């Protein structure tokens, strides 16, 4: 188990009812974090339509996560 802080944005934040929480997860990659928190962020989107950052750096879904990381889950963006 790893202690991971997960941050939710936009619709994910509204679905979760909070912007950030620290969880104990059996997660090896950013994708594991996304999947294991799906009941919280409520995404109906596949991960490929969303983006992820780890410790304030953009990451890939296959990027490994480590104890104490902060994982930022971004729903599909819509600037402009």
């Amino acid at each position, binding site marked *: 188990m790893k202690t991971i802080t997960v941050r939710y*944005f936009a619709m994910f934040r509204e679905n979760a009812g909070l912007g950030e929480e620290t969880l104990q997860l059996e997660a090896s990659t950013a994708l594991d974090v996304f999947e294991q928190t799906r009941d919280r962020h409520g995404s109906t989107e596949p991960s490929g*339509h969303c983006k992820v950052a780890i410790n*304030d750096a953009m990451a890939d879904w296959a990027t490994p996560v480590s104890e104490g990381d902060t994982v930022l889950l971004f*729903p599909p*963006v*819509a*600037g*402009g």
Partner: protein
Amino acid sequence: MIAISNQNIDIDALRRHLTNPGSGGVCVFEGWVRNENDGRDVLRLEYEVYEPLAVIEGEKVIAEAKQQFPFLEAVCVHRSGLLAIGDCAVWVGVSAPHRDEAFKASRYIIDEVKTRLPIWKKEHYVDGDSDWVNCERCANG
């Protein structure tokens, strides 16, 4: 330069950042808040921005544009917060020695900003409903 602003965009001030004695032209794109989307009457828009990464990713976009379409000056400002119909939501300006670089670089910057920066748009409708908008390219990608 890229910036996120929760205030109205001061276009005259931004234009001054594009001044360069080597520039022969400037190309500006302004994105405005429109009163309709997908057949629904829009009352206002709300932008949520994760500024630390929006700025980093925006600077990357501008650097990529400069490498492909050498220009002299570029500025992009995106709004956050609540916006009314007709407000300027995003402003991109590029000045270059010749128009081709200015057109192409400004097009590249706005296209990439819309689909790469951590920015989310919520539409508030006249009927009282509201919804987050998904970028079409991301949703289809």
